[in-house]
């Protein structure tokens, strides 16, 4: 069933210049807001969080303000955490209550095709296979990022809440939370750096960055290159 909103999602943005590139909507306003909330809180949380682990020598750069820095570090970390949790509630609402959200969620579900894609793509990378797999709206890299991101966010939120309200729980839960919170943060930060930053910033042709996160638009040639099945469907629905 396609609703009017669904069609708007698939709308093709025509260029003012007839020879210019056609653009397709890849991230709508909801999704862009969610992405902005995610990346900004992630950066703030990572910086204010890892500040706890700074060696003593690094703290000297704060000079006489080290005390205030530590105080505000805690406050800012909690504010960012609350925004992150609101965002984590916003996303399920979007996935359940809007047609575009429901479609987004359905497209994000892992399928058997993803496993075949991984196999084919790795074979393509090392030259065993001359053809790249044809990706749908979300490829296995994006699905992996989405789902590990969700699992990681839940783990880090739960342990973070245990740390915040430590007095109401046994000491052992606190100790486990400190450990898991730290390790999960290291895992998430390094995964973001290697996986996501490469994909949208460092990849040849993308540098300095892909602009989809700003205006939500993907150019036609990029869509054909990266999500051919999605392109086909969009063009078909246009007719």
């Amino acid at each position, binding site marked *: 069933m396609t609703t009017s909103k669904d069609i708007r999602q698939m709308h093709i943005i025509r260029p003012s210049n007839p020879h210019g590139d056609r653009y397709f909507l890849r991230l709508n306003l909801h999704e862009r807001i969610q992405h902005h909330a995610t990346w900004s809180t992630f950066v703030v949380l990572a910086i204010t969080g890892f500040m*706890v*682990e*700074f*060696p*003593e020598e690094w*703290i000297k750069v*704060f000079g006489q303000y*080290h*005390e205030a*820095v*530590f*105080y505000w*570090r805690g406050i800012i970390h909690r504010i960012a955490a609350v925004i992150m949790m609101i965002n984590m509630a916003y996303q399920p609402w979007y996935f359940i209550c809007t047609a575009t959200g429901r479609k987004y969620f359905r497209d994000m579900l892992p399928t058997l095709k993803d496993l075949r894609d991984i196999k084919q793509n*790795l074979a*393509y*990378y*090392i030259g065993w296979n001359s053809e790249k797999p044809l990706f749908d709206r979300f490829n296995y890299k994006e699905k992996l990022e989405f789902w590990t991101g969700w699992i990681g966010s839940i783990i880090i939120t739960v342990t973070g809440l245990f740390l915040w309200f*430590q*007095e*109401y*729980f*046994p*000491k*052992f839960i*606190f*100790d*486990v939370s*400190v*450990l*898991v919170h*730290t*390790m*999960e943060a*290291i*895992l998430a930060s*390094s*995964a973001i750096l*290697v*996986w996501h930053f*490469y*994909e949208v910033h460092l*990849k*040849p*042709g993308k540098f300095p960055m892909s602009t989809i996160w700003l205006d939500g638009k993907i150019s036609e040639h990029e869509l054909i290159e990266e999500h051919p099945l999605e392109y086909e469907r969009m063009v078909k629905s246009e007719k």
Partner: protein
Amino acid sequence: MRYRLLFLLSNLILVFLLSGQAFAVDEENCLLCHKYSGLGRIDEKGKKHLFYVNEKLYNQSVHGKIRCGECHLGIEEFPHKNVKKVDCATTCHLTDPATGRPFSHAGMIEKYEISVHGKGTTENPKKHIEDLPTCTYCHDNRIYQPINKLAGREQGIAQEIFDRCIGCHTNNAWTEAFYYHFTERLHQRRSSQRMVELCTSCHEDEEKMARNNLKPVSTFRDTFHWQAIKYGDPNAPNCITCHAPVGYFSHEIMPKKDARSAIHKDNLVHTCINQGGVQVCHPDATPSFAQGTVHPYQFKAGLFEDQRDAQTRKKDIEKGTFKPFQTLLARTLKPGADQPVSYQNIVMLLIKYFYMVLIGVLISCMIVHQVLDYFATKRELSRKVTHV
């Protein structure tokens, strides 16, 4: 020659007369010789002893009003012979204004000797007396450091406050000394960081701790308490905050199993709350929150490890004693270990190793994937360029 000597002597007398305060304290005229910064000797063992006294600094110190002979007993001839080692329990001729009796640290030392740091009782003396901290291990003759933020004066006197004293207490020198004593006592002597340094100077020494059947506390630096100290939070908890909180006394620290100890299992909730302290720390602390151990866990990822930990590990690797998995097993098999704690330790270590493997494997796979992707994309782009 004689005139020269006379000139020198007259000069000396003049100096002594001018520095009235110093003259009052140095009645025995010790500074006649001891003011020379080169004064010292090398003993039979080749150890250097410095006998120089900086008069200005001494006068500003907590003992600045006490004559040398009060503590340095047995000085009767030149050069000094049979000088006794300074004993802090000596009764000095200073009158305690509270009692009107001669002052002494003996009462304090009595309490200290029965504490965990004391020499033990006659029936049950400590084995390694040389490892125990004596008075001077922690206490030097400190320079007064009164609260000076009010006026920002170098000397630490806030004139507005001092003026309230000298209306009645007209003897300026005495009032100043009293003011210094009082204001110095109003705040913590050492910063939390210095306090941790002092305690860990023994308690992080693995050999010394093993000899005395104790565990080294290097893992205090894994706790959030230490992170707050590192950032200079003035209310951050140091060793004393929990081992001698409000209602306890730093000279009477008791072993963990003693009911008088702040970290005895029945007193832990009270210690965590710190009711009545400068800062109430964990006001909602429950018995289950206060149970368990604060610093014997060793679980941090090691990415940001302390230089000290890295050195111990390096030593272990050199000696060939670094076996992480055997350490894990040893924790379970160690007889007499606190069972729930050692069980918890294993859970913690398993989580730690799970994450270390997960991070290692996942991130390496990601890096390999992205490097392959990089070359494939490059290949694709160059193909496209040649095609065009």
